[in-house]
């Protein structure tokens, strides 16, 4: 017998978790101020860099292209997406250990409802953090291009950005938690930490080299990060505007996000069930 009204329960639970988290953030003044400041700074960086870039490109070529391969906007968006995914991954690995929540969730609703509620509330929280930059970019687009389609496309871009960042980070997070809790991982914990450190060193080294810090490494101007699919979200945002963009990449970004979200949720569900039901919660 499957859970009745699981979809309704998902939204009820999401609302409650989000309500509790927002209240928690507001009570923590330091965290609240930092998040507000980050959102304002993020907005300013996007508007100023975007404005300078658009002006410069327009001055040089007579048009505005945001998404040609290897140009800076997709690179910045991909780096920001990776940064948010890493932030959410850290939350995933911390949050999943918060078994006080799961003892209530898993004896009240199905694991699928629990997984969907966690993902929806986390995505919504990320959306809230990005709300100010989203509104700022929307305002800039409406002011600059006066295209009504932006009213839909800019918030949609943020939604695709947040859901994919959440789903990918939680899929990796739960997989790591399951692996960390497994027999083999327990026996070879040192190897696990070595691999983690190596991955960290490679990622940090790669980013340092792309911005020219440290020993000189020959990196092509069109680097891999700028070609990552999250950069295609720019094409979604620019849809309907005079900005040169690729409709094919915009469609690919939307469909790709749906596929990533679908496969990601399936992976998270399997990993979460394995993790929640097979990991010791008590020494008693």
């Amino acid at each position: 017998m499957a859970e009745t009204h699981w979809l309704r329960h998902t939204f009820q639970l999401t609302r409650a978790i989000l309500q509790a988290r927002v209240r928690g953030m507001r009570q923590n003044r330091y965290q609240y101020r930092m998040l507000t400041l980050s959102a304002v700074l993020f907005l300013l960086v996007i508007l100023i860099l975007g404005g300078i870039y658009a002006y410069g490109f327009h001055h040089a070529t007579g048009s505005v292209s945001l998404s040609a391969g290897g140009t800076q906007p997709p690179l910045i968006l991909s780096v920001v997406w990776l940064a948010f995914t890493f932030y959410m991954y850290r939350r995933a690995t911390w949050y999943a250990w918060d078994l006080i929540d799961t003892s209530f969730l898993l004896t009240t609703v199905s694991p699928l409802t629990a997984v969907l509620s966690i993902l929806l509330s986390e995505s919504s929280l990320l959306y809230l953090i990005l709300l100010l930059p989203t509104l700022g970019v929307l305002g800039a687009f409406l002011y600059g291009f006066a295209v009504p389609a932006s009213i839909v496309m800019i918030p949609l871009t943020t939604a695709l950005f947040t859901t994919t960042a959440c789903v990918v980070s939680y899929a990796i997070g739960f997989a790591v938690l399951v692996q960390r809790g497994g027999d083999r991982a327990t026996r070879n914990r040192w190897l696990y930490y070595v691999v983690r450190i190596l991955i960290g060193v490679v990622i940090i080294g790669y980013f340092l080299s792309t911005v020219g810090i440290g020993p000189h490494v020959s990196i092509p101007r069109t680097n891999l990060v700028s070609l990552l699919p999250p950069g295609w979200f720019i094409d979604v945002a620019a849809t309907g505007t005079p900005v040169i963009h690729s409709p094919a990449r915009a469609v690919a970004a939307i469909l790709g996000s749906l596929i990533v979200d679908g496969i990601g949720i399936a992976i998270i569900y399997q990993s979460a069930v394995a993790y929640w039901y097979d990991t010791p919660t008590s020494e008693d």
Partner: protein
Amino acid sequence: MNPTIETTALTKQYNDTVAVDGLNLSIPRGTIYGFLGPNGAGKTTTMEMLVSLVTPTSGNATVNGVSITDRDALREQIGYLPATPPLYDHLSAREQLHLTAKLRNIPPEDAAERIEGLLGEFEWSDAADEPTGDYSTGMRQATAFIQAILHEPPVLFLDEPTNGLDPRAARTIRDHLTALAENGTTIFLSTHILPVVEEIADDVGILYEGRLVVEDTPDALIHRRGTTEESTLEDVFLELTTDDTTTGWGGE
């Protein structure tokens, strides 16, 4: 009559540690079953297996006729209060309880009536709009207790339900448990407060190093081995949960 809680050779092993070792239980409907044991004996693991939070390594169990592997059906049969109250710190007790009522598909009018009635019995209807994170340990415990019984489940699993409660609230919970059992609810109660078990439990099982070492009524346990009139369940517990004293008590 079929037992409401029945386990057969229920076992849980983590790596090289056997947390619960071949547990056999048969608990009839309407029983308050005191499940005792020292820290690390396997009580919480047993309870988590019975509420389907932990998958057994081997063996099987049914709760109110439902296999513990059938999680969707099992959730309908049980109320669970873990040792740490599962509350969202930034929701008030009233919000938390109304959320639970929605997730348990309790009609809103019935939910409001039950919630206000139960909050009234614990005499803190006025404080029920404060965030639960600001509550005392006892108030959190009682809120979680109300949450566990709100949907009137046929089987209740309670881990240290009177932990941190003031005497009046502890009495309210004990009275509730007795009344629920009289109406047919089966209660699986784990606690270190042995006088509570002595007072309200119909049967007692003592777990030691993952194995059930003895099971009987509290009175029978106390008088089973020629104890003195002043003996209590605590004396029996202390004697049974020491190495080399578990033979001759009829345990497994």
